[in-house]
């Protein structure tokens, strides 16, 4: 099924007799799903773009590349740096805006500007009964009624099928520079936290392959000043690399793209990052750290129980290996949170047909 309007989408969901497997571009789904394919790529098209108001509204099936190209023409961008996980997950296809919102897909700049959900001004979606619902709008500040936008963002389709997305966009800054410093793990992670604790408005803080990466963006003079000030504050030797290319690799975890193993996404307090990895001593693993250490991408063998080694925080199984079918993809929830989540799912999708089996 491939609806081309929200009305058709409503009709299809209302009439569905079994589970529906939602697909935007199929580029970032987690876990395996069951059900008849609901292809959302037909809900495509940018209906509003006002650069002076930093606002863009588009159908959920609109290709991300189309949005990015239009924004680039006006020297604007999506601030939250959408990861392209096709290499990591071994997928092909065209990433769509609806999928980005449903996955709350957010990259390295999250430490500075927040996640995808923080840039979603409004959504339209169709619930599991086929009813079309609007939440939020297209303005920068909006506290009118309950914020269902946040609820839907990151819900991986289980509460509703997103049909339209309104986003806040950002001007591309004039300049960007990254401090690159070769450091041991403990020193490197400490440098990331020190940088984030400085007044220099760091927009990226990652540790990959023995190097700490710290990014600043803004006006040319300001970037030069902050790159200098950060080096003085952090000490030791740093190279300054201009431009933003090396962040694509961090964003997309390209280090793990062709490598064998299960991939986990671990979210912890930044200062716990070291303990997570030292806890894996003696176990073959690779790690990429983003968000100042708050996000750890782990590459391990199938049998490694990553969740048992995360002190406080959450681990999501992003890429499973054969034989891991019994391992839940999403982190387990406390009984109280699970009960609320179940309650919401029962209200929004009483038949349990939307992406059945996702999110526990």
């Amino acid at each position, binding site marked *: 099924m491939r609806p081309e309007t929200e009305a058709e989408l409503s009709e299809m969901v209302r009439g569905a007799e079994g589970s529906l497997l939602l697909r935007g571009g199929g580029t970032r789904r987690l876990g395996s799903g069951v059900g008849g394919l609901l292809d959302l790529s037909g809900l495509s098209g940018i209906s509003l773009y006002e650069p*002076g108001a930093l606002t863009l509204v588009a159908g959920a099936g609109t290709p991300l590349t189309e949005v990015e190209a239009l924004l680039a023409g006006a020297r604007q961008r999506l601030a939250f740096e959408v990861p392209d996980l096709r290499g990591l997950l071994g997928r092909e296809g065209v990433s769509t805006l609806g999928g980005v919102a449903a996955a709350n897909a957010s990259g390295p700049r999250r430490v500075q500007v927040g996640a995808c959900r923080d840039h979603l001004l409004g959504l339209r979606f169709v619930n599991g009964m086929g009813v079309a*619902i609007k939440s939020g709008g297209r*303005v920068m500040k909006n506290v*009118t*009624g*309950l*914020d269902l936008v946040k609820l839907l963002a990151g819900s991986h389709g289980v509460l509703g099928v997103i049909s339209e997305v309104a986003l806040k966009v950002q001007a591309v800054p004039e300049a960007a520079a990254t401090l690159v410093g070769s450091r041991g793990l403990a020193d490197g992670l400490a440098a990331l936290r020190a940088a984030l604790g*400085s007044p220099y408005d760091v927009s990226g803080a990652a540790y990959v392959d023995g190097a700490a990466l710290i990014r600043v963006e803004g006006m040319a003079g300001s970037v030069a000043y902050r790159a200098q000030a950060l080096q003085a504050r952090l000490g030791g030797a740093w190279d300054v690399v201009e431009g933003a290319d090396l962040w694509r690799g961090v964003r997309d975890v390209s280090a793990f793209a062709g490598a064998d193993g299960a991939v986990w996404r671990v979210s912890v307090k930044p200062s716990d990052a070291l303990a997570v990895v030292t806890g894996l001593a003696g176990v073959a693993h690779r790690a990429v750290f983003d968000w100042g250490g708050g996000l750890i991408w782990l590459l391990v063998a199938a049998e490694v129980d990553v969740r048992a080694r995360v002190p406080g925080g959450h681990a999501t199984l992003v890429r499973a290996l054969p034989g891991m079918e019994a391992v839940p993809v999403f*982190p387990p929830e406390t009984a109280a949170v699970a009960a609320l989540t179940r309650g919401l799912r029962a209200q929004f999708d009483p038949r349990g047909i939307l992406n059945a089996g996702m999110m526990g």
Partner: protein
Amino acid sequence: MDMPKPDARVLDAREAVVARLRTVLPGDAVISDPAETRAYDCDALTAYRCAPLAVVLPRTTAEVSAVLAACSALGVKVVPRGSGTSLAGGALPTADCVVLGVARMNAVIETDYANRFIKVQSGRTNLSVTGAVEAEGWFYAPDPSSQLACAIAGNIAMNSGGAHCLKYGVTTNNLLGVTLVLMSGEVVEIGGPWLEAGGIDLLGVICGSEGQLGVVTEATLRILPRPEGARPVLMGFDANAVAGACVADIIKAGILPVAIEFMDRPCIRATEEFAHAGYPDCEALLIIEVEGSPAEIDEQLARIKAIAARHQPVAYRESGSEEESRKIWLGRKSAFGAMGNINDYMCLDGTIPVSELPFVLRRIGEMSAEVGLDVANVFHAGDGNMHPLILYDANKPGDLERCEAFGAAILRLCVEVGGCLTGEHGVGIEKRDLMQVQFSDADLEAQLTVKDVFDPGWLLNPAKVFPLAVTAARRAG
């Protein structure tokens, strides 16, 4: 404005309810003497008042849980309260409710600079969160003008903003986790000092839920290192539309000031008489503040000045000292006080796409002339969050009603041009009956079902946010 008829069964059981509350709380935490509960009869929407059945002031999450469990068992409604500065009547009691105030829960639980968060009890005031970390050079970014008084609890419930939210975002963008007590008494931990919890974003729907879903007792908040410096610039224009175009050009140019504030002529005149800030007498005035080191500030202001020059400002004044900065902000910060000095006023906070600013300001002017009530505009221009202040005379019969009708017309206009009813103050009782202007029945029903999940008995702050007719069946239980 209607409120539901109080539940006679609960009013009759008043003594028993108070007695029960005294069994779960220390004696000084239950207030039932009407002379003492009077302070809780209203919030900052003072046009509406009502004495509650009783007020409780618990000190811990466990006490909050015990109160809610007891009220649940007795079928008694609860209205949560922070500091009572809501402008929307969010904390207005009903005669058959218990007001649960978190003001005594004001401790700092944990401060963690390495991980950039602070955990506080929710009754702590906004400003004293920054107060707890400023000696180390840090701050909590959302800064409502009421920050000296308002509590984090109210900020979370209203998803409050502030002058600096253009750069730093509003409460929801700076909130990492909460301890939430459900009406049943169950305590739920949601989120925490990490960025991602994996499941459905419950925190996102709790923030801004106006006390509909649960009582927030503790909060984990993002803190940030204080910038090296800040400097405002003031500029005057001879038309609202020109000032609006200047704002759009600055934003388009990719400059990110921390604040862009706008005042129109009626507001400039009134504040000038009141505060003597030395503002130019012009149609529209912008205050723009940027942050950074002195050189970074110079770089940004040079760019802003060049953009402003294209719009022929009639005044341009860059602060050269602390004292000049204070003077530039003085008028803006006294705007509400200045208005209150002239008259009673009602403060709206509809938000519109910034491109619609000139049109909406013109329409408000025309409507003001038709209705015969003056309006002054002062607002956050960078994000289109308007604050039209409608002046009226509370002692003149019919004036409040005329003012409310005018306010509703302005909010309808905001929605018509693609905006919303409220950008930061919340719906409360004030905009409750306008919700159908912005939302369809299906949109509202989806919101109600969320409340059904968190508060199936509809006992928590039940007569707010949604039109009474829409919630009647649910409230009847």
